[in-house]
């Protein structure tokens, strides 16, 4: 009934929506389990939904990932309350960075940024596995 409420009159392709819902569920698991990756999976899902409108997909990601991140963060804080003190000094950087990113969306060539971050992420990932 809950799913019917969400899906009612929304999209014709219910199969794709079901697949997207299951993928979102796994994105949530990833977000809670390793603290990252929810956005990557959600972007993939939203690109499937929005098809040609890449900007709309990019724009919808934070709206979906934010509640997931808030919930995961809250559960981590309940488990380890002292992470609030450790995270506190970084909050201004995160806030200003997020605002700058939102303003830069569509103005900066996201392909170049994406390639740079892909190289750094690949290198950091390999380091984490080998260390």
């Amino acid at each position, binding site marked *: 009934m809950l799913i019917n409420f*969400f899906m009612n009159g929304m999209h014709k392709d219910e199969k794709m929506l079901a697949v997207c819902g299951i993928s979102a569920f796994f994105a949530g698991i990833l977000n*809670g389990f*390793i603290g990252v990756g929810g956005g990557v999976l959600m972007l993939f899902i939203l690109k499937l939904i929005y098809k040609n409108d890449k900007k709309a997909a990019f724009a919808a990601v934070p709206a979906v990932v*934010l509640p997931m991140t808030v919930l995961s963060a809250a*559960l981590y804080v309940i488990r380890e309350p002292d992470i609030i003190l*450790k995270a506190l000094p970084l909050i201004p950087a995160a806030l200003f960075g997020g605002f700058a990113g939102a303003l830069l969306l569509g103005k900066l060539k996201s392909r170049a940024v994406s390639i740079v971050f*892909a190289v750094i*992420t690949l290198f950091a990932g390999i380091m984490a596995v080998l260390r």
Partner: protein
Amino acid sequence: MTVHSLWAYVICFITSVSSGMGAGGGGLLTLYLSMFSGVSQTAAQGINLLDFTFALTPPAVVNFVRFKPDIRLISFLTFCGTVGCVLGTLLSSHTPDLLLRKCCGVFLAAVGALTLVKEAKEVKS
């Protein structure tokens, strides 16, 4: 976070900018904190999530106003995602720190490699 706090601040800012643009890079702060700042993997994940709550708020608001995405669709995906979140967080509390870091590393390496392959294909075509 004492000696490396300036680096942590810089990495947090840069990854927040890239995440706000949807270009990824959110996991880099977690790996930096757990590998170079003497913070446990679980705490690093918690710090990353807590900071990204603030990093994602401006893009979520700005993009919601600018692009007006389908609220029902967003709600449906968010509902599915948050259920998964609870499960993932519970799972992480029963997983050793080293294994968590390796999983995080494997995931980030895979995402980096796949992104490079995808971009190379798009440049060719």
